[in-house]
């Protein structure tokens, strides 16, 4: 866990703390923080700054009804949100996206598999399974792509990424990640391209089949 060397950029962590990241990216950041003490501490510092701003904010009186309503509700029963525990290589936030199930892998060819976990207008997030030594086709993206390694490793033009490492790639990065030897590489990857299976799959398949 202490071997994590690729972290969340500070501006992105601030945006995450403020709840401003699209859900697909927020899920990857939450998963990274679950694996990375440095980023958990940095997030704590951002919360502290947010808290300082909150304390300094001009007060606006609340209605008397609000206080009595809240006090009346303290003893009322409520359903706690389910807590998803880490399972194997999948940290809690990934288990939450999986809703506790095992990944349902769909083959993309050449042993590469994926399971799309979530998508909305702002982005999508998927698990990728890449056999050892296999290149993930050179893929350009429209915008931001976050990739978090959960098992094994990959390397590309920018460096080597092991378990817990986060790669932040923008549209300028043309890269060809290759899975390391050893265990298959399992990644959690988010992009802000809208969820278009037809567009994504052929683009990914194209270089694989050299078509």
């Amino acid at each position, binding site marked *: 866990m202490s071997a994590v060397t690729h972290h969340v950029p500070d501006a992105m962590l601030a945006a995450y703390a403020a709840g401003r990241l699209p*859900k697909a990216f927020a899920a990857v950041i939450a998963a990274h923080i679950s694996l990375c003490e440095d980023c*958990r*501490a940095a997030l704590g510092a951002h919360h502290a700054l*947010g808290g*300082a701003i909150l304390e*300094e904010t001009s007060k*606006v009186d609340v209605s008397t009804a609000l206080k009595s309503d809240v006090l009346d509700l303290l003893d009322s029963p409520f359903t706690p949100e389910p807590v998803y525990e880490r399972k194997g290589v999948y940290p809690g936030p990934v288990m939450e996206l999986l809703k506790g199930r095992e990944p349902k892998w769909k083959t993309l060819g050449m042993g590469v598999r994926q399971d799309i976990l979530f998508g909305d207008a702002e982005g999508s997030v998927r698990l990728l399974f890449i056999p050892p030594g296999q290149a993930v086709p050179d893929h350009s993206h429209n915008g931001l792509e976050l990739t978090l390694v959960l098992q094994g490793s990959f390397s590309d033009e920018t460096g080597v990424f092991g378990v817990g490492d986060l790669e932040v790639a923008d549209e300028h990065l043309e890269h060809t990640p290759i899975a390391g030897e050893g265990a298959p590489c399992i990644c959690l990857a988010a992009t802000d391209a809208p969820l278009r299976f037809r567009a994504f799959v052929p683009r990914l398949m194209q270089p694989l089949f050299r078509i």
Partner: protein
Amino acid sequence: MLSVNTTLLNAERRPAKPRISERKSVSQASNEISQQTRWMLAVRDSRDRDAFVKLFDFFAPRLKGFIMRSGTSSHQAEEIVQDVMLTIWRKAAQFDPHRAQVSAWVYQIARNRQIDLARKENRPLPEELKEDPGQEQDASQILGVEQETAKLRLALKTLNPDQREIIEQAYMGELTHHEISAKTGIPLGTIKSRIRLGLARLRHELKDLTQ
């Protein structure tokens, strides 16, 4: 609000983390621990309703002011404040003063709940740290976190109005991470060094936890 007293200013010259022999006992330091923290601990450990009322009186008007600043109506803001205050009561067990000052913890809840309510979905959150239940309360660590927060607050005060506005916008969720990144050209050195100090302290604490 914490007043900046001489204890806090003297603390600047103290080492970042006192050696064990220098650690204060809870009773020695408890007088210096802020009221909010004592209220929150009473809520967490004894489900103390009077202490909760004190927290409500302190935070509810600030939360309402904070939420309304981004254009939310008074009525809607009160609904969010109600939800946040109930969440504080219900999730009190997760409050850990060794890692977060009360306002930082409340800020985190407020941002997440405001967005969850607006979007009707749950923000992805990192796994909760599991602590050794037998872990002794370390008053000097609690005090240290409060002192870092007080220093952050002081640093905020030294910003000029434009700089302050950007920081506030960022932590109120009004800026994307690209915008936060783009605006770091503005000298935020003091804030950043405070974040790093806080980060170092929190990281130290996290390492202690995992040993």
